């Protein structure tokens, strides 16, 4: 029970610790590029600066535009509280993987719809691309999760995370195919290279940053936190589902922290070594992920399915 309490405390703290992850990635990336870079705490400083500023709302906007930042932040906060940490979850909202997919869709719907309200071309370009990616990323995420669920025979994230330590599960080819596919999902959801460049200041190339262009002040702070929470969500999920961690507190939390940091470093390495793809080539990459899942599916069936 003590271990559970710690894990749930970490899960709640995730709402606060989320900005640490993009900060860490940026720091490691700067080091890899031979710069000293900002501290991992830089996102907090940005949030503090934005929180003190007034917002600016464009003409002719409705409540859809004004509600979008708080609604997406709320959806992501809810999703963070669904994703288990160390095989336990707070349990208010259940722990089903399909709920997480739905909440991500809600956040995507609200930001993309809000892009239509001021109607700026750059925002809409980004929103359209983001939605186009999701058409390929969502089946990919689902297939990967189905392959992971094959081990514990359940779509309950708590049981899926608990089963990750099972040698029988971790050694199946299907599980490894799922891990590869999930890696692509991590890159799409966090908006990292080679799929999207989070550091870009050129509006024409923006994907995730595009719909954020008109926002300022606290609105922008909420949206930036939402992006950070998406990092937390997929990286904690990746660590839980694919890395066998110790089961006892407090070692499981320390191991989780180490693994998430390592995953941040991995994302930074991928981002430093790969150039951004042409946007229209991204679906081919995600399609390769789907093909990987198909191989995993075939191997699972070959092993006797159930």
């Amino acid at each position, binding site marked *: 029970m003590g271990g559970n309490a710690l894990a749930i405390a970490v899960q709640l703290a995730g709402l606060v610790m989320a900005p640490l992850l993009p900060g860490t990635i940026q720091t490691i990336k700067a080091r890899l590029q031979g710069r000293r870079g900002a501290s991992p705490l830089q996102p907090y400083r940005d949030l503090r600066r934005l929180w003190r500023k007034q917002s600016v709302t464009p003409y002719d906007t409705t409540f859809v535009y004004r509600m979008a930042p*708080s609604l997406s932040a709320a959806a992501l906060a809810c999703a963070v509280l669904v994703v288990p940490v160390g095989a336990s979850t707070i349990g208010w909202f259940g722990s089903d993987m*399909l709920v997480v997919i739905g909440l991500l869709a809600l956040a995507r719907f609200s930001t*993309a719809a809000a892009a239509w309200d001021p109607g700026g071309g750059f925002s809409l370009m980004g929103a359209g691309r983001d939605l186009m990616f999701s058409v390929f990323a969502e089946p990919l995420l689902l297939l990967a999760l189905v392959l992971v669920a094959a081990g514990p025979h359940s779509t309950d994230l708590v049981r899926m995370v608990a089963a990750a330590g099972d040698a029988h599960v971790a050694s199946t080819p299907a599980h490894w195919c799922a891990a590869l596919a999930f890696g692509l999902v991590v890159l799409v959801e966090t908006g990292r290279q080679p799929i999207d460049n989070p550091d870009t200041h050129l509006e024409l190339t923006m994907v995730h940053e595009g719909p954020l262009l008109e926002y300022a002040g606290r609105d922008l702070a909420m949206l930036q936190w939402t992006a950070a929470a998406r990092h937390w969500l997929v990286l904690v999920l990746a660590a839980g589902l694919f890395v066998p961690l110790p089961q006892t507190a407090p070692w499981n939390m320390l191991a989780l922290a180490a693994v998430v940091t390592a995953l941040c470093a991995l994302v930074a390495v991928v981002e430093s070594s790969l150039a951004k793809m042409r946007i229209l080539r991204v679906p081919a990459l995600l399609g390769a992920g789907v093909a990987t899942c198909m191989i995993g599916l075939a191997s699972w069936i070959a092993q006797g399915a159930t």
Partner: protein
Amino acid sequence: MTTSAWVLIVGAAVATAGIAVSVVPRGLRAGLALQAFGVALTGVAGAMVVIGAAGVGSQFSNGLGPTVGVDPLSGFFLAAIALVSTPALVYARGYLLGSHHAPAIAAASGVFVLALVGVVVARDAVTFLVMWELMSVAPAVAILLASRSADTCRAVLVYLGSTHLAGVGVWLAMLTLAHLGAFTDLHALAAQPTLVRSLLAGAALVGFGTKAGLMPLHSWLPRAHPAAPSHVSAVMSGMMIKVALYGLVRMLFEWLAPLPGWVAPVLLGAAALSCVAGVLYALMQHELKRLLAFHSVENVGIIALGLAAALLAADAGQLQLAALAFAAAMLHTLNHALFKSLLFLCAGSFQRQVGTLDLDRLGGLLRTMPLTGTAFLAGSMAIAGVPPFNGFASEWLTLQALVQLALHGGPAGTALGALAAAALAATAALAVFCFVKVVGLVLLGAHRQKAVANSHEVSVSMTGPVIFLAGLCLAIGVVPGVVLGPIGHLSPYGPLPASALGITLVVPGSGAFAPLAVAAFIAGCTVALRLARRQAGSAAPSPMWICGQVPDSRLAWSSAGFTKSLRLVLAIVLRPRRTVSIELDGVVVHSVVHESEVPHLFDELLFRPVVRGVLAASRLLRRTQSGSLRAYLTYLLVTLAVVLAVARIGVS
């Protein structure tokens, strides 16, 4: 007689009286009100049977005399018909004011709704088929009364043609089943050879599948639904295609058992195709009602996915899972009926006020029509399947059923379940894409033409029904367990586990989903953050930043622009056409004409060759029609000789 029987009879009588009253002079309002009240009563009777009252009337009979009755499955569809039709008929009061032939259209819509009721209460083949045909013809009458343009006439021709051709399947299946006595004796069919059962299942799939709009038999649907007056479109899209699914459910789950092995995989394949291709074509549409019609194809696909999953799970011996999949399909039937009729009614209000439903010519309607606009936004979120609306609840259950099928259904179940789940996930993402586009182009942004800027909110009789439907969409999304309880009893595989029916949905083999807690948390969190945001204050509103240019609504993004990236990526499947003709005056560009369209490949590659073949065959046949009396006498003589010869040889 029981109370529910009386309620049903009184409801039907009141609705019939309403039809009569609506055609007398000055009787339109009273007639529609009576129709709405009567249909509501039939729905109450249906709901009473679903939640446990004794069944009404007789059981199914193999005879040909007219018999009617209500069992829980019929009761569920009666309730759904009432939930859709009552708001639609109330809405029609405001909608039909001042339009041509209003009394006749009102009467036709009343007959249409009663025909729907008739199909689900019919308890013998003849009543069923008569009501079935009436259900097909009545909306065609309403469409032609409302508009006689060449396009509309063509749409009605395609609609009547394809539903009647496919109706042969329904007739064949129903009459053969009555002949074999399969309505009463559920083992009668088991004695028949597989070929007979396969032919019957094929006839039922084609007949009911066409009417339900399952791909590739859907071609009439995106033509007919947009042509109808909006309240009729709402009932057509909301309930008529569901009544076809009711027929399919009766066939597949009751009368045709045991099913030949190919039926469930074929249904799953057609359903997955309907989902993905339906929403993909919806995304490429530029006209709101046509777009909504393609979404009906998608949602029928989602329901059929649930039904196919139930059949596959039952084959694999997973009865609990089969019950879950069946309940998911029924819940999505109800949910789609609610949000689709809501969207069609809102589209009618927009058309009333603006005069067009061309997506690229609307914009900013949320500011001029706040109530209808907000209801439309709720319906869009529901159909896009985002929490906390009802679309998510039933899509969650359907996905859950498919994933569980993959986990427990044996090798075939694994492959089919995982692929279908991936198709449904892609469908959900495409639906979000599509309704972001619709919400943006219709409700948000700058007005794109004067008529939109001058539009104002419609009357209470038109806003009331849509707000009611939007409220239901939200309520079922927040507490799906409440409706899932009675729906769970409809399945032939026994009731759902009690854990799946509470405030928190716990499906065996899945994590829990607490829709009420999710909705409350999101609402609370959003409001708190919004208040925090207000504290910081806002600077004066400013124009949007587009690199220093002045915003110009003529440069606003269009439907085609927003979806361009996906159209380019999927060019190989969609085969979009694009022509740009530039008129030069010397070296100066005088004008540029740009045309683009995404052709409907099912029409072009599948139906056009068939139509061409039929026309060629009829040209050949026409040669025999010389018009000379002697030729026809010869034909008669030859026919007689052949018949006599056959009778003599004795071909049975």
